[in-house]
């Protein structure tokens, strides 16, 4: 029996390189607890897809990869473990010469399921009227939705999704997000979802892992992220004779600094503190003419994304 705490996906010190001088992943460790929606966040080229290909065994690790699924090493449990997981990696893989329904039937055969499960699956993703058409004629969004239906067909315990909202319109994105949440809530499906969009992940994930240049930058729950230094918010206060007013806040914010003659900088945990700080300064008679709050996580993420794109 696997204990409740047993992670669905676990990787320890995972490294990978096609060429020794150019490592793609170095010492990645991640743990996806059961029942979580795990956002795997990173800019393009950070190593997300390589990680996902290694997790599914699509890419063969030359040595022991140290990845385990459902508590078993992937070298031992694949391909049998695919019964328990569905995945959609990169662009949707479909048989264009077959109809949408036949694509689902084919998958049902591969997974040893009843072929009649194909039709309800079409309904989940709103393709019930297009089932007989050849996939060749589908739009990009329709193909994406079909691919998700295929990944969900057997109601797996684990769903691996690589950039699932790519190619969807804004309404589709919202729908998709709702679908994920519903699946997670009602069926207890663990979802591992990769994205390069922070707000995408923030809105639905319970856990988050951030990868950058082949290394893990953060891993934890959303709460842990909010509490971490990455999530610290930076407040800059513009006022006359900055050094004079530092004393007012120094007791509460020991990290306060005078950036220049008219600027103070300090970190806050929450927006609500800004009002209190402002009141304190004004009561003390400080001539405040600007308060600026920076979201640390977003700024940091923007920064790494820009340097890589």
């Amino acid at each position, binding site marked *: 029996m696997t204990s409740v705490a047993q992670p669905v996906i676990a990787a320890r010190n995972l490294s990978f*390189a*096609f060429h020794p001088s150019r490592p793609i992943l170095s010492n990645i460790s991640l743990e996806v607890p059961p029942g979580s929606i795990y956002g795997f966040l990173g800019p393009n080229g950070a190593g997300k897809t390589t990680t996902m290909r290694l997790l*599914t*065994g*699509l*890419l*063969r*690790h*030359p040595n022991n990869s140290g990845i385990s699924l459902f508590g078993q090493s992937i070298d*031992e*449990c*694949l*391909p*049998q*473990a*695919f*019964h328990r*997981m569905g*995945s959609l*990696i*990169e*662009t*949707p*893989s*479909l*048989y*264009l*010469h*077959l109809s949408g329904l*036949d694509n689902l*039937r*084919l*998958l049902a*055969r*591969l*997974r*040893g399921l009843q072929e009649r499960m194909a039709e309800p699956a079409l309904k989940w993703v709103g393709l019930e009227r297009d089932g007989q058409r*050849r996939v060749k004629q589908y739009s990009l969004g329709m193909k994406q939705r079909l691919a998700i239906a*295929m990944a969900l067909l057997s109601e797996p315990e684990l769903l691996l999704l690589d950039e699932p909202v790519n190619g969807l319109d804004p309404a589709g994105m919202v729908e998709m997000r709702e679908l994920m949440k519903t699946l997670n809530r009602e069926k207890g499906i663990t979802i591992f979802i990769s994205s390069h969009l922070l707000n995408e992940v923030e809105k639905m994930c319970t856990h988050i892992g951030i990868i950058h240049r082949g290394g893990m930058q953060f891993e934890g729950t959303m709460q842990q992220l909010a509490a971490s230094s990455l999530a610290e918010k930076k407040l800059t206060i513009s006022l006359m004779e900055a050094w004079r007013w530092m004393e007012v806040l120094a007791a509460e914010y020991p990290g306060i600094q005078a950036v220049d003659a008219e600027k103070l900088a300090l970190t806050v945990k929450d927006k609500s503190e800004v009002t209190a700080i402002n009141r304190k300064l004004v009561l003390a008679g400080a001539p405040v003419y600007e308060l600026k709050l920076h979201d640390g996580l977003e700024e940091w993420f923007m920064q790494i994304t820009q340097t890589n794109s």
Partner: protein
Amino acid sequence: MRIPYFYGFRPAWRAEWLKLKGSGVTWLAAVLGAVVPLLGIVFRFFSRAFDPPLEPEALRFNWFESLFDDSLQGFGGFFYPLAIILLVSRLAGLEHKTDAWKLIETQPVSRLTIWSVKWLMSALWVAVVVTIFMFATILFNALFMAFDGVPAAATFGLPVGFLLQLALRLWISGLGLLTIQLGVSIIIRSTVWPITIGVAALIVSNMVASGNGLASTFWPYSLTSYTSRYPYGSEMGKWMLPAEWQSLVWVLLAPLAFMLYNYRGSLKLVFRSAAVWGMPVLVLAMVGAASWWVQRPQSLTMLEGRTVIAGNIQGPAMPDSIRVYNASLDMEIAAAPVQPNGVFHLQVPLQADVEELLVKLSFTNGTKIFAGKGDSLHLSWELGARPGLQKVKITGTGIANNQYMQNPGREFTMVGYFLSDDFKEGIEPSRFITRLLEEWEEDNKTLRQFKTADGFGLGPVMRSMQEKLIAVQYLDYAYFMYPAKFKVDADDPEWQKALKRVEPILRQVSDFDSSLVGWPQYHQFLRKWLVRDLPKGADKDSAYQQRLLQQPAGVTRDRLLFDLCNSRLELARDSASRASIMQDVALIANPKFRQSLEVKNNLLNRLRKGQPAPLFAAHLANDQSVSLASLRGQFVAVDVWATWCGPCRQQSPVFEKLAAKYKDQPITFIALSVDENRAAWDKFLAANNPKIAQWRAFSLAEIRQMYGVDAIPRFLLIDPDGNFVNAQMPMPTDANFEVLLRQALGLPAEEG
């Protein structure tokens, strides 16, 4: 618990089946399977005006089997391998377009299952192509026959074994190609490139591996072509030909192809570790060893100290004996009876290592075979309804020698063309000799590479002999035929200079090569070669004889002398010149040779016009003795025949018609049977009630000896004094027979 290697096989197979829907695979298989039979029928439709008329008396043949003689090569040579390349590319390509590989590779089926299902599905569709080809060939030809008429000699028993074996061999011959193409089509994720590579390899193999070279039983792209060259398969009763075994050897590459697929994307990475090299090295070593085993030179066990010819005869009538002649000596060396079921068996004494023999069945046409010391040859002899209609299949240890001799060298040579009447221009000596040396090399290459369907090459004795005979042929071209045709003087400096270059050919043969003594072409060459220094117009025959006598006495010299006398005797026009030749016969040491020439001379003298026709003992159906002596005072026409002789029965009715036509003339028509089996003759007379006098000779040997009869039917015309008018009349179906008859009777030539 270990996950099975072929995990999820049934689900994967069922899914693969669903993928075919709308994929065009069925159409591809149907079109590529049916295109050759269809083209064949269209071609026959438009060319049937030029076809020879259907031969009613042809050898019986199975209609179904005959269909594949025509269409198989076009199929196996190009369209079948093309079908494999295209089908495999299509089946692998089903996953390429949207990288559906990653879809199936993240399902509960193992990679080995995925690859194996692809292989099996490809193999299944290749089998479908073969089946469609076989059915289409039969169907289209049946339609054509409904339109064009049924060939009279055809039989229509469905040869299930033949069809199944052919289909199976074709399928197997494509499996190696399939494995390699599937490997390529899966690793290179494109549709165009694997097809381009495959078709290029196919075209190259068609150009390079044509002929009997090693390549055609080894190179995976030419194996189907090899199989299609032999619709009847092994001549030695084996299940498969070397090409088909080789195809299975290429299938052994499958683990390697699978490995390349399995590690696709990280191949370089994986092969950096030495442990992974074990499998490919093992696979390649296995393929290498198995190929060596399949391609190794084959040899058959020879007999110790004797040479045996055995076989069986099939035909409308059974001859009663079989005789073997030494072809170059023109001498009988062995004889044996033929069993009523057609089986015969005899030992033959050979003088040389390999000799050309003429095998004759009683009186009918013979067949040439080549036998070496220690050979055991098996002849399957099928007789038709008239002379010349026969098929002899030779197997046994001499199979390669005999097949090579059926078509030695190449069909067309440039040198042969230069020397033919069709070539009207001139050609300088140096250019001629350059070309000659090239073609001499090529002939030698063909000789070295020669193999039978089963992969048997020539024995070392035969090969060295043939090398010498090729040299003899090219020396004849260079030394005699070129100067004769282009009127080159022997001392022409340019010619002399060019001739120096044939030195390497000259080194192959010695002036007096005893190993070639059994070969007539060597005799003919020697007759020119030994006297090549004599001026034009000299008596070359006697000079040749002189020079032979300078050689050491022995079997070789004797045979050459015999051959010279024999050919001179045949060419002599009168008994006086024959008499002078007979004086030279005394120079031959071997009494058998001398005796043979004397018999021949006597026979030739005896059979001349005006010589008395020898009297022989014969009887009528009622046992009353008869003799030619009783027919003096009138002309006698004799038809020498036998009940077992199919061709005789074609001529006899015409002979009888002539008897009726000339019944008022002073001439008697006699049918003289040489049946040894009296009962067969009686039965025939009772059944057919012929209209002319029927005699039967008491002794077949007597007729053979007295009249020099070595084939029947034979027709004689004798004058009222009992002397020959003609001992070798043409066949009655030939108009000349009647012309000669009327001449003898003093009747005017007929109008029209």
